[in-house]
């Protein structure tokens, strides 16, 4: 990327503070996607330990039974739920569903595509992710 182009770069892309809850959802979607990808790679490594036999498998599985392991799994649960629910919202939007109808705009030009349906979808995704994470924590630490 050339400096001449004056692009914001990753820093600008990842800044969720300026454009409302939709940009926060965009940022969380990227973050949770990368997190789930990292978990997926780690999960493949984890399950590959079965090749070391039952002892090796049990040894590695103990890592997930620690406090840190529980916290990581709780974050994975939250990422998974948010990515799923928000992903459904985004997929519907990508098909042109729920983004409003074209009409002559009136000042102050509230964009119809940023309507309450999508805002409810975003807040629902965040809320469900938080509930799922708390439920996961309760199950894991309640044992």
């Amino acid at each position, binding site marked *: 990327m050339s400096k001449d*182009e004056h*692009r914001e770069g990753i820093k600008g892309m990842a800044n969720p503070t300026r454009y409302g809850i939709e940009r926060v959802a965009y940022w969380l979607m990227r973050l949770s996607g990368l997190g789930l990808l990292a978990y997926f790679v780690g999960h493949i490594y984890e399950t590959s330990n079965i090749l070391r036999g039952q002892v090796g498998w049990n040894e590695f599985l103990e890592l997930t039974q620690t406090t840190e392991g529980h916290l990581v799994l709780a974050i994975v649960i939250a990422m998974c739920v948010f990515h799923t629910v928000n992903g459904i919202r985004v997929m519907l939007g990508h098909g042109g569903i729920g983004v409003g109808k074209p009409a002559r705009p009136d000042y102050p030009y509230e*964009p119809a595509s940023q309507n309450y349906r999508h805002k409810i979808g975003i807040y629902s995704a965040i809320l469900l992710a938080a509930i799922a994470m708390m439920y996961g924590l309760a199950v894991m630490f309640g044992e």
Partner: protein
Amino acid sequence: MAQVSSISNEQTSPTSKLITLRISRFNPEHDESSGFMEFSVSYEKWTTVLEAILDVKKHHDHSVGVRYSCRQATCGSCGMIINGKPRLACFTKISELNSDVVTVEPMNNFPIIRDLAVKFEKLFDTHQKIKPYLIRDDTEIESNEKEFLQSPEEVEQYIQFANCIKCGLCNSACPTMATDSSFVGPQALAQAYRYVADSRDKGKDSRLKIIDDSHGIWRCHFAGSCSQVCPKGVDPAMGIQLLRGYMLGFRS
């Protein structure tokens, strides 16, 4: 490069207030990096950011580089980053910003000419790329009718997107534009929808082929920042999603 100056009191009225106007200064021909110059400027309730910048040019530093023309949000020349968000300087009142400090910078994702003025070549190139005109086999002259008739409902399908003034604010706010220099951008994609949705146009297939590219419509992730900064209510995010609806078979 910081410098503080104030406009003389003879220019101010009893109802005026003072703000600090921070102007980004950068000349790519001889500057290594950008810096800010600060000016103390008086303003009234109705004073726009552009008027404040022009005050600075008139009274303090005429070398400040800024592009403007109509001063009424019609020409799309004076787009810039004002207090962190892309806005038209002529359409943004200082009193609406609720800040004692107003920082103006050149728009992101556009090469800088000097200070606040940026190059629009890429914007116009991508706009031209999506064929921003009616495509038909026949012409008005050859047709038996004098004009291509449309119902009010057919006009409603695209008229919102015809309001685009090519100011570039949407491209400046877009998170994909921030990292992908080959992305077509929300401005051009919204204009592609404008013509695809026009009942007089017969060029849908050729336009969809142009934007069906790895750096085309599929790079839009519906962050919606483009629609939030549009000063004309065009709502490019809606146009892009509706356009993608055609490509995914949700619309015909």
